[in-house]
């Protein structure tokens, strides 16, 4: 019974598939001026440090959790490297930081997300090194938090809907943060930061809203599969 419970929790979380590490959502290397690169690194750092403290405590109690943590991180990386069928014809990637969020809480996900983003940069050349801080903030901090709390809030009403919304919202929030980061760094020559934000939001809306919905649906299917397993 207990085992089953843990499994279900884990599975639920897969479904919480939060932010979408699609190519387009990473801020690429060299795209942020040095000031903003430092700013976002400084903003993300406390979360990562707190995350490391939290997991260290868990690991002291049960060292085997290190293994599980690394396995889940590898799992999230692999999901991010898979191509998701997309309505618009472009390719995108599904992801699953929610799993870790449920197993370890959302804070450790900052660590897991940082490792995933590092490997994405180093093995797939997605994202960048100077932009790592900004990407960690949008994808490993804001996204998982959004997905985690959406799920927590809604799971008692309708599980499937909770999973769908957690995944889809996690996605959308991540892309909004990315848009803000880009707008702040590159204000429009005429209409300023707000103008730039509008541009990024509208460009991303065309590509991201269908993807967020697709990811929500995918999450629900995986959720169903695992619960029935």
């Amino acid at each position, binding site marked *: 019974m207990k085992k089953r419970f843990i499994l279900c929790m*884990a*599975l639920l979380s897969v479904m919480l598939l939060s932010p979408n590490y699609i*190519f*387009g959502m990473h801020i*690429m*290397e*060299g*795209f942020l*001026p*040095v000031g903003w*690169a430092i700013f976002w690194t400084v903003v993300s750092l406390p979360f990562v440090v707190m995350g*490391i403290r939290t*997991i*260290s405590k868990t*690991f*002291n109690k049960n*060292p*085997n959790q*290190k*293994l599980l*943590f*690394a*396995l889940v*991180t*590898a*799992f999230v*990386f*692999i999901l991010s*490297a*898979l191509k*998701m*069928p997309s309505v618009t014809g472009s390719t995108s990637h*599904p992801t*699953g930081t929610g*799993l870790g969020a449920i197993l370890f809480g959302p804070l450790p996900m900052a*660590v897991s997300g940082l*490792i995933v983003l590092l*490997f994405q940069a*180093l*093995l*797939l*050349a997605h994202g*960048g*090194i*100077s932009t790592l801080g900004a990407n960690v903030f949008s994808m490993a901090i804001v996204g998982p938090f959004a997905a985690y709390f959406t799920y927590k809030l809604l799971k008692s009403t309708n599980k499937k809907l909770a999973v769908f919304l957690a995944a889809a919202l996690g996605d959308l929030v991540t892309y909004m943060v990315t848009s803000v980061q*880009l707008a702040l760094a*590159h204000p429009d*020559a*005429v*209409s300023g930061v707000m*103008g730039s934000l509008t*541009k990024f939001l509208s*460009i991303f809306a065309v590509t991201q809203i269908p993807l967020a919905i*697709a990811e929500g649906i*995918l999450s629900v*299917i*995986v959720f169903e*599969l*695992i619960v029935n*397993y």
Partner: protein
Amino acid sequence: MLIIDRFAYTNKFCNSNPYFKVTISFLLILLSIISSNIYFLCLMIAGIVLTTIFGAGIPKQSYAKMIAAPAVYLLISIFTIVFTFGFSDKAYTEGFIYFKQFHVLNFYIGLAEGAVKNGLTLGLRALSGIAGMYFLILTTPCSQQIKVMKKAKLPPVFIELYVLTYRFIAIFFEEAILIHTAQKMKFGYDGYKNSMNSLAVLIKILFVRIMMRFKDMESILELKHFDGNFYVD
């Protein structure tokens, strides 16, 4: 496993001093994001690309393919930044070298003075940064990255997780590809609905296998007298 990983272990700079390679790459990336001189950036790009191809011996075609992917995204992003557009009934005209307003939804698009040069600088900066990053990832294998991380005094638990994750990525990446191929052979990715279902099944199988692996590995850790630390040399 992954092609970049493969090159990192087989390139001609593979065994060179890792601290040197990482320092140089970081400096290159830093130089890229602080310079705004177009000629200097062009020179940097040429220098890094040539060193990577002829020095490290990365095949030209592979390198071109790897650069092409981010380049497409770069173009879209630059376009977004260079052009001013939106919906408004107010017409800006001052400071534009090109402006057009459509009657439909009051959509307007314009090109501001100086925007082209800004866009060009930004594009070159990004390209130069990307080339610097590629130099790093194509010449510095994971085993050397770890040495640098240790030297940089990153938290040991972070390094342990990094090492373990790398190993598990290698194991499960292969499995994911095999499952994907088997599904593809059975028409699992024909059409949108099939694709979504197959992908969900793939994720489920991977997850179940990872959990089974965790159970097995727990016992093996016990047999190997696991004391809570994964020692990295």
